[in-house]
């Protein structure tokens, strides 16, 4: 535990700032969440971070709710609420004003241009997210195999991803991994 005078304020500051750099959505911000929660503030261990990632993928709703789980582990319900609002609020406000501005100016070319430029960045960030969680979760060759099979199925078929998560959970439950 690091000495934090006010954990709620730290949560709000950490995630509020992070949200403004979350190019390409919540999954791109996972490396930074890992850095903040595990390496900098020691809120979670590596294993707990992987667990929290798993729970956030299992539960319904936007993937950003991983911050709700991190917030809860820091400061209970208040922490969950603070982290979620901090991660969603600033960029939602930004989106509101930008969309109003664009509605008036009606020149929608530069967002398309910037978006095209951001695509490689957000893919790179998501690949890094995968690597960081995999380094904790894929400790055995069977675990690696499950990851590869899930990736291949999700890439090549239209099977609902929830089934793959449940299958992974069952294999873990059975002690195969």
């Amino acid at each position, binding site marked *: 535990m690091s000495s934090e005078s006010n954990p709620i304020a730290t949560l709000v500051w950490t995630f509020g700032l*992070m*949200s*403004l*750099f979350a*190019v390409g959505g919540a999954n791109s911000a996972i*490396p930074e969440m890992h850095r903040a929660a595990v*390496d900098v503030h020691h809120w979670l261990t590596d294993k*707990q971070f992987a*667990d929290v990632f*798993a*729970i956030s*993928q*299992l*539960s*319904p*709703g*936007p*993937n950003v709710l991983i911050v*709700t*789980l991190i917030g809860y*582990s820091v400061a209970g319900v208040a922490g*969950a*609420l603070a982290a979620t609002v901090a*991660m969603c609020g600033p*960029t*939602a406000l*930004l*989106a*509101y004003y930008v969309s*109003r501005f664009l509605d008036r100016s009606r020149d929608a070319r530069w967002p398309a*241009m910037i*978006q095209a430029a*951001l*695509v*490689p*960045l957000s*893919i*790179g*960030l998501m*690949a*890094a997210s*995968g690597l960081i*969680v*995999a380094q*904790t*979760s*894929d400790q055995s060759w069977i*675990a690696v195999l*499950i*990851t590869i099979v*899930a*990736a291949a199925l999700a*890439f090549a078929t239209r099977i609902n*991803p929830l089934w793959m*998560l449940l*299958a*992974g959970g*069952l294999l*873990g439950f059975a002690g195969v*991994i």
Partner: protein
Amino acid sequence: MPPESPPVAAPAPDASAPSPPHQPGLLELFLAFAKMSLAGFGGVLVWARRSIVEQHRWMTAEEFNETFALCHFLPGPNIVNLSVVFGSRFRGIAGGLAAFAGLVGPPMVIATILAALYARYGDIDVLRRTLAGVACAAVGLLFAVVFKMMMPLLKRRDVTGLVILAAVFVAIGLIRWPLQIVLLVAIPLSIATTVLARRMVRA
């Protein structure tokens, strides 16, 4: 699922096909976003498109793509941005808040309950093993999204894009540099190369 009747008095007959789009009320916005959010395991976008474009016909497919493109290019959770932009387009700030509350509120309650359960029972061995298995599969799903998004770059033989992608992956995933520093270098670089590439195509 039967289409729900609008809670606010709206004298518009729903059946008529190309009539001017029905204006959703606050409660309707809240409920629609709560529904798509709770249906959305592993991503809400598919359900948002289905609900907004196909089920309620609040937007055409093009309008939806435009709005989503804007929300994708802005930082932060895309679908959360979308809810605010969408809601405010119909009902101003209150509409944005209603859609936002519907999208984030109910799943946040579920996530908080799961977090409380995890804090209490997370040390139990069976649960740890199960979650480890889920995490393995979840990482696989993430890689699948990465590959799907990479395909257009590969097909276009977009070398600069792939180099930037690889550089960001190494800087963040392997070296573990802070996000802000990497992005402050990578974003201007990527925008500059994209603009240059388009100029060259046009010339």
